[in-house]
């Protein structure tokens, strides 16, 4: 199966619209350098945050001398610290992502989405780590804030070929254990796995304090089930074949699928995870711009 070359993963139109919106951290993130995003750490920057009693070892330069003078108590002045964030991009590279009913497979769509987000993050001087997984993490590009690393990320994405079925929940639990600093976890997947397990994994990530964005990549055919006649469905992830007349099953299928998405949406809502439907039938620019705008709007302080 041919895949998109690295130089086509980035679409100028998508980039142009994404740049205008940017990707802000919704919540405090634990960066490793000063940046635009709120850090959980109190520093000594410009914006006052609170007082704290002086303890041994504190730099006496941060003593609030006015309070000491009035109350004879030693307090340290603390200020809000802005930091950069680390975005962990997790792209589902399982067999089911190979499906397409038109031109771009879900995987290709996911790769373009991941590439665009990586570009955007690096552009903001934030750090990004890219992982491609199925039942386990198959490809990893270590955290970097170096813009020149983008090309390597693109090559990593472009070179990947699916090879196994997915086990998303396991991967989510693993990543929750492995990612130490709170950051942004962007999961790009078709989520064709047990939704209870997926939601459990997401909750684990959220519990670890990560800002989780879930891009649910779906093909229009999966959303509309438009098939007619007699069709032999061959499972992409080694399920038994099914011969059916899909027109007669469409309503039931759509109901089942909608219920599944509703469960996912509700679960995400409960864990304050952003659930974004990425319909591969729609332009990526539209999907991404729409979400970034929404995010920008909801994360204003």
């Amino acid at each position: 199966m041919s895949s998109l070359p690295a130089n086509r993963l980035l679409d100028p139109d998508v980039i142009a619209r994404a740049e205008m919106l940017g990707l802000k951290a919704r919540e405090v993130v634990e960066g490793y350098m000063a940046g635009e995003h709120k850090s959980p750490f109190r520093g000594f920057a410009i914006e006052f945050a609170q007082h704290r009693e002086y303890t041994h070892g504190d730099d006496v330069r941060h003593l609030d001398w006015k309070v000491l003078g009035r109350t004879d108590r030693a307090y340290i002045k603390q200020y809000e610290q802005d930091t950069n964030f680390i975005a962990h991009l997790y792209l589902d590279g399982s067999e089911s992502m190979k499906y397409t009913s038109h031109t771009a497979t879900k995987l290709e769509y996911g790769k373009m989405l991941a590439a665009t987000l990586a570009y955007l993050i690096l552009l903001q001087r934030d750090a990004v780590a890219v992982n491609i997984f199925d039942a386990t993490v198959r490809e990893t590009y270590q955290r970097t804030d170096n813009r020149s690393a983008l090309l390597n990320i693109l090559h990593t994405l472009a070179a990947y070929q699916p090879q196994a079925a997915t086990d998303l929940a396991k991967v989510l639990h693993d990543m929750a254990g492995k990612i130490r600093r709170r950051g942004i976890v962007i999961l790009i997947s078709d989520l064709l796995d047990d939704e209870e397990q997926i939601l459990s994994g997401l909750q684990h990530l959220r519990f670890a304090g990560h800002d989780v964005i879930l891009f649910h990549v779906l093909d229009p055919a999966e959303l509309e089930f438009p098939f007619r006649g007699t069709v032999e469905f061959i499972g992409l992830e080694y399920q038994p074949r099914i011969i059916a007349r899909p027109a007669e099953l469409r309503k039931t299928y759509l109901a089942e699928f909608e219920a599944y998405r509703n469960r996912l949406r509700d679960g995400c809502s409960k864990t304050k995870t952003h659930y974004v439907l990425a319909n591969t039938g729609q332009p990526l620019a539209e999907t991404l711009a729409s979400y970034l705008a929404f995010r920008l709007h909801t994360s204003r302080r």
Partner: protein
Amino acid sequence: MYFLNPLLLFGAAAISVPIVIHLLNRRRTRRVEWAAMRFLRASIEKNERRLEIEDLILLALRCLLLILLALALARPTLRGALGSLGNLGLTPSTALILLDNSYSMDATDGVQSRFDKARKAAEETLDALPSGSSVAVWLVSDAVRPIIPEPTRDLALARKIIRESRLSDHASNLLPCLQQATGTLRNKAGARKELYVITDGQALAWQRWSDVLQLLNDAKQTVRTRIILVGDTDEQNLSISDLRLAGGLPSVNQPLRFEAQITNHGHDDVRDARVTLSVNNDPPSDEGSIEFIPAGTAKSISLFAKLRADGFHSVTARLADDRLPADNRRSAVVHAMKELRVLLVDGTPSRDARESAVFFLRHALVPVSAADAPQYFIKPIVTTPAELPAARLDGVDIVILSNVFDFSPDVAASLEQFLSRGGGLIVFPGPNCSRAFYNSKLAAILPAQLDEPRGDPEKQDSFATLQPKDYQHPIVALWNDAAAGTLASAHFYRYYPLQARTNHSPVTVLRFADGAPAVMEQSVGLGRVVLFNSTGNTAWNDFPVRPAFVPLLHRALAVLLIRRDEALNLKVGEPFNYRLGLEFANKETVVTLPTSTPEKPQRDYGRVEMFNGAPTLRHANNDNAGVYDVEVASDPPLRMRFAAQSPPAESSLKPLSLAELKQLGQAAQVLQYPTDAALKSRVQQETVGSEVWWPLAMLALALGAVETFFAQRFSRSR
């Protein structure tokens, strides 16, 4: 129930079509690699039962639809009461009308003939047929003449042809006609196959009675037979049952005796039956009457006529008209000759004429004074066996061999050809004969072989005599009348016992008193051979000096010539085949039929064809009794005649008995016309069977609609 197109029942195998289509569709399914299998599986699990039931319903509907279509195409037919269930309106019939046109149908009640009634009955039958029916019409007698061979829906045409149909002079014999008709109808499509036999109920027509009943009973299942009787019970009828040249040779300007046989077929005796005889449609040349003919018997009357010129003459006997005119006249054709040339082959020529083997024969042939002999019409030519190869047999009419030892194979072959052309041969063996030659070289033409001679001509006290009475053969029938003298007075001292050849068909003309054959004859080709067993002179017998010798010899000559004329007198329906000379080969011929009138001439045109190696005048359309005039376009034109004579048995108007009618009624519906109620209502009362294909077709159509509805409904997304 039975099927008119049973082969189409195999169409029911089409129920496999939906299954095959399903299997084919399985092979032709689109393949899609699919990721969201769990939702698809869940959908199927939810709908599986419903889909199975829907599939089964659709499959059942489609199979039923195909079965119904196959059934409808096979054209099922219900019988009897069940038949009326499917009979919304009368089912069209396939009918065959057999119209008896034998000459007994010419019997009239004074107003109209039986045939007139039969045509009306046939027209009423057409009226009774349901709309859309098809009908064939055959004229039947002892032969079938299909005037509408295959059923046509054009009933107007059938009506016209029935009105124009004509009687024949055939006898009637319905069994072969019924066999052919039922066989034809069985092979026709159609729910209602009906056979209408319109006849006069003459008993003669129903020969082989048990076979007829068997046939009708066997055909009952598929063919409904209706017998419409148009006859009456009046049997009275007088007919001329035979007319023949009874005596003398057909010579010009000699009085010829014709014998007409009159048969009284009725129950009442007939008195004073007047018969006239006319030649060539001239006014009657003779007439006579038979004073009394008892019921059911025949009597003959002799009438005389003279033929004024040589050539072919028609002789017609007529009776006064009665209720059956067709048999009140009978014609025969006679070929009159100016002179009769007889070649006498003398086996023992002698200077003393009396010692010659043909002395008595020559004188017997010309029984007139020497002065009158040149004018006498029989011209004997005497020759010897040595001169025989040079003799021209073409120039003679009859050859007489008398005590001839033998002759060459070439002569034997030419003699055989002479006979096959219609010549006559009389053989008188004698002491000079080579028995081996006669029994081997002439075996093909002689009716019997000559055994070792018996008797001794020297012993005058030991002899055989001829039978004194019970003469059957025309040559000797004259001596049944005691006034004609006797044959028994002749003494045969020595003779060759005759042993009939079984591979031929010899006829014994005359026997000895002990029953041994004395004279035999047989036909060879168109000619005939008469074989005596003793000499033609007084060497072995004294017959030549007996008074009966001359008439016997002349009658033998006459019979030999009549044989030649037999080809001129046919039975109705027989083909006419008459050999002509080579000069007539491929000449055009015109045959004027007896039914021809000056206003409406009826002629058949043809040519003289080569048949069996000889130019032969042939004419097959001889269905009417009477005289057929023939003209061959040669130079000068050859004009000749032949006659067709109706079979005399048909004149018996005896109807079927009541017991026979009752039996017939069990095998077929018997209707009396016109005394029964209107034929139309009688015919329509019965329903033989009704096709039920169209209710099945409608049901199939309805099923098709239901199937479409369900297919649409079931294929809607769930």
